[in-house]
């Protein structure tokens, strides 16, 4: 695996980011605007700015096929940006939430998206043809705290959500007329809207992996991985037997395992990366000068990791044989 490509965009935290399907466009949430970067000769250049929200944007996602961009923000709104010849045209989506939206992702079918919020609901939004309007349906029960993350099942009906009450839940977001009836799976056969297919608690503050068996049955295996590390913010499955997670330690870690057990298999950070952490040859004069000026001989204000602050999102960048991940950095 080759080393990371580092693109320094700006000196602001990045709440969320998304790549287009051809990986030529990168959408990055910066305060209350989304900046679109185009890849020109190996570097990302600012191409467009989507302004429409009036509070910090918390989520951005580009639909891989249609190219539509959905954003959600602390101003409790979501906007769908339709690409056209003259630029992106925003459409307001009524989420009907009383608290900030925290997270947004398109479903694989791209006909709907889910917005997590601090209002203890997940708004599942879809386009209503006859009204020419995006409407939302709420997944409410049994959520009782802020939703921090959502993730779609490939069938576009099942939705997994993580929340601050340390629970991960699996819901059905089946909407008549929008979705095709899903094939029966381990999560159930008939799945009307807001069916709770699974509810799991993570009480180890590490990573918990659950292997489901059948509907209404206890899971085959629930494996908690305790680490010596600080909490993680985001994770992805890089394959069936590997998870990449990253968070407050400012570097990404790899976990491997199966239903019999999981363990931390190491960091993705390559040691001895050039440019950082290389000790310059110090003269005695310089050393004493530093001691006098700063009270210490070595300047240790930089972390040894690529990211110099908490990693907030890990997203899939390319997946063919081995997945390459792309992280959003805070700098």
């Amino acid at each position, binding site marked *: 695996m080759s080393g990371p490509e580092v693109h320094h965009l700006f000196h602001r935290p990045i709440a969320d980011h998304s790549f287009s399907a051809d990986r030529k466009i990168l959408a990055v949430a910066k305060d209350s605007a989304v900046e679109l970067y185009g890849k020109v000769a190996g570097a990302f250049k600012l191409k467009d700015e989507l302004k429409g929200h009036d509070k910090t944007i918390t989520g951005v996602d580009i639909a891989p096929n249609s190219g539509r961009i959905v954003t959600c923000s602390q101003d409790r709104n979501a906007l769908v940006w339709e690409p056209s010849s003259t630029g992106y045209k925003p459409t307001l989506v009524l989420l009907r939430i009383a608290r900030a939206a925290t997270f947004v992702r398109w479903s694989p079918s791209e006909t709907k998206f889910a917005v997590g919020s601090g209002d*203890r609901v997940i708004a599942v939004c879809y386009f209503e043809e006859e009204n020419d309007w995006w409407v939302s349906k709420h997944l409410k029960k049994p959520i009782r705290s802020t939703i921090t993350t959502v993730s779609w099942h490939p069938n576009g009906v099942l939705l997994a959500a993580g929340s601050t009450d340390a629970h991960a839940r699996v819901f059905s977001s089946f909407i008549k007329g929008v979705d095709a009836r899903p094939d029966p799976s381990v999560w159930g056969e008939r799945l009307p809207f807001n069916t709770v297919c699974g509810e799991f608690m993570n009480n180890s503050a*590490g990573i918990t992996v659950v292997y489901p068996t059948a509907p209404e049955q206890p899971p085959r295996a629930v494996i908690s991985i305790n680490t010596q590390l600080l909490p993680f913010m985001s994770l992805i499955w890089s394959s069936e037997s590997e998870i990449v997670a990253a968070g407050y330690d400012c570097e990404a870690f790899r976990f491997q395992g199966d239903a019999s057990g999981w363990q931390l298999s190491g960091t993705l950070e390559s040691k001895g990366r050039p440019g950082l952490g290389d000790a310059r040859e110090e003269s005695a004069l310089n050393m004493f000068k530093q001691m006098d000026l700063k009270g210490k001989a070595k300047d240790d204000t930089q972390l040894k990791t690529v990211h110099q602050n908490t990693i907030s999102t890990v997203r899939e960048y390319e997946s063919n044989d081995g997945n390459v991940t792309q992280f959003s950095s805070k700098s």
Partner: protein
Amino acid sequence: MSIIQQHTSASLSDAWRTINIDALDPDSSQNFDTTSLHPPLPEINEADVRQLNAQVRQLLRGGDAEGALRGCLETPVYNGSESAKTVTEVLQSIKASDMSPMLERIHQSPGGSELLDVLIKYLYAWQPLPAPVVLLGWREAGHRVPLTPQQTGFSQVGSRPGSTNESTGAAMSVILSWHEKVIDIAGLGSIGRCMTDWRKV
């Protein structure tokens, strides 16, 4: 529900922004018991706790400090000060030079990481100041618990030898050195787990 909202003079002013909407929402966290978010604590009756404490003391008298520590950590008693007292006794009886090798052995054994998480919880249970005073038997000895800044171990440096203050300070320094050693082995992750776990000792 109609999506077009009716505007009145009340809704056009911004007075509505100051309404505490959580108080009006029956589902909000103000209006339900947040302890219902997690399963209840495992039940353990008082006789069991007494028996466990007796067993631990037996091991301690027999010189098996590691066994005593393991005994305490394998059956954590949530919401009980009695077993925290026993844990403190065990911790104080272990020499500083034995701490790291013993923690290393516990960490390497299967399920050892969970045991150290429990230990961290006991160490943090010490943090609120009146608690250690109770643990050390001040109450039993008939001392009043003065709520003065002198309570911290830090200010005990110049106190008279033989005073009870000294024992608090000494116990605190034992706890702090245990804390340091546990973090060296179990990592910062264990503090995170201790803070987020609903099962408090």
